[in-house]
């Protein structure tokens, strides 16, 4: 069973294909351990907002939803006010997954 790390650098307010990327994460979670790592503008839906529930639903489905701490700070998003199920994390998580042989995809 493969492990997957999906890096989401875009946000769904401007680009609707991000929703498809979330759906891919949900599908992969049925086959293996899956992490969705939000970075750059990808962290925007982790705020309390209309799109936040999508991330909460992914977390409820067993996906580890992480938000890059640096990207959060850049955008003035408080790490203690993220959507339920989303946790702040350092970018080092990506390198750790790469070293562990996780299948990593960038969007």
């Amino acid at each position, binding site marked *: 069973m493969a492990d997957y790390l999906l890096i989401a*650098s875009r946000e769904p307010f401007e680009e609707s294909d991000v929703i498809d990327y979330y759906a891919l994460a949900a599908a992969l979670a049925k086959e293996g351990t899956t992490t969705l790592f939000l970075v750059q*503008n990808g962290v925007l839906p982790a705020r309390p907002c209309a799109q936040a529930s999508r991330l909460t639903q992914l977390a409820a489905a067993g996906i580890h939803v992480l938000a890059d701490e*640096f990207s959060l700070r850049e955008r003035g998003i408080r790490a203690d006010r993220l959507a339920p199920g989303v946790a702040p994390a350092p970018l080092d998580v990506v*390198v750790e997954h*790469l070293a562990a042989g996780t299948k990593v995809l*960038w969007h």
Partner: protein
Amino acid sequence: MNEKKELTFVIMDAPYESARTTTAFRLLDAAVRRGFDVNVFAYEGAVGLPSVRQAPHANAVHGRDVVEEDHPNPKDAVTALIEAAHKRGSRLDWVQCGLCVDERGVSEWVAGPRRGSPADLVTFVARSDNVLVIPTR
């Protein structure tokens, strides 16, 4: 003792264009700090990242001279990463796609990067523990 890991990063964004470049540098830094051997295959606009012709500038709007502005240039990040890898006994092998270099006329680089081709990328992929492609749109 753990076997040393080798990671490859494929980047294509031109300097000063996208947050992806900043994230790519941060990922390279994280890999280097772990003592991993790192390969970079830079193609399309990313071959401009180590260009030695980059120059810091002042900021007249904010009234800052060139020293006060302290404008970061990506060529300095490339140099710092290569030096950091060397200090840790690791290797950061930065390959510039030769065709991309010729198209753009950016053939003068800081010390470290070397000219190559997609054949180098094939070698990197075959040899590495993992590969991350950071594409533009």
